[in-house]
């Protein structure tokens, strides 16, 4: 169980760090509409690409 727990936190730690980094970057100063729109577009493309990459690596799933 401890090994599984360690594995899970190994997987999720970078995810949490990434979220925190993005939020600090996004909210460190008052953003403009254009900056928020750019962030929105970037997030859309980023998550769509991640899903597509997983599906490409697992074609038979």
């Amino acid at each position, binding site marked *: 169980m401890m090994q*599984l727990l360690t594995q899970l936190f190994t997987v999720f730690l970078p995810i949490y760090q990434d979220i925190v980094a993005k939020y600090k970057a996004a*909210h460190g100063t008052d953003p403009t*509409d254009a900056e928020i729109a750019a962030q929105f577009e970037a*997030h859309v493309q980023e998550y*769509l690409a991640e*899903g597509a990459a997983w599906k490409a690596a*697992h074609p038979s*799933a």
Partner: protein
Amino acid sequence: MLRNSLIALALLGVVACGKPAPGSLSPAGVRIWQADQAVVALGETQRIAIGLNGVKVCDPAPCHPLLSDTNTRIVIDAVSDGIGTIHQVPAGWKATGLAALDRIVARLDAAGKTTLASYVDAARALLNVP
């Protein structure tokens, strides 16, 4: 279950501690900001599913992903559709996001529901934040 709840709470805490929409934004900017939060909630749910798919467990044997490929694909398909729709119609972020999560829950098998329940609940809570 406790493990899942703790991690989901951590995710909820990290993501939900974001400030309300910045006062510098116009009403249109606030709508995009809210839509972006929904995209992040869905996208992080997908990221968690992919992460869980990468974790191998060997009890019971044979070794297998903590979240099966089939369940992972269900999450990715629902999230991709949801994010695509929010991208096209940002004002509908809440209904679209919640519908994507409902679709995930409806299509997962029993093991997938158990594994992902806490994370889906965390994402749902994020979407329901005013």
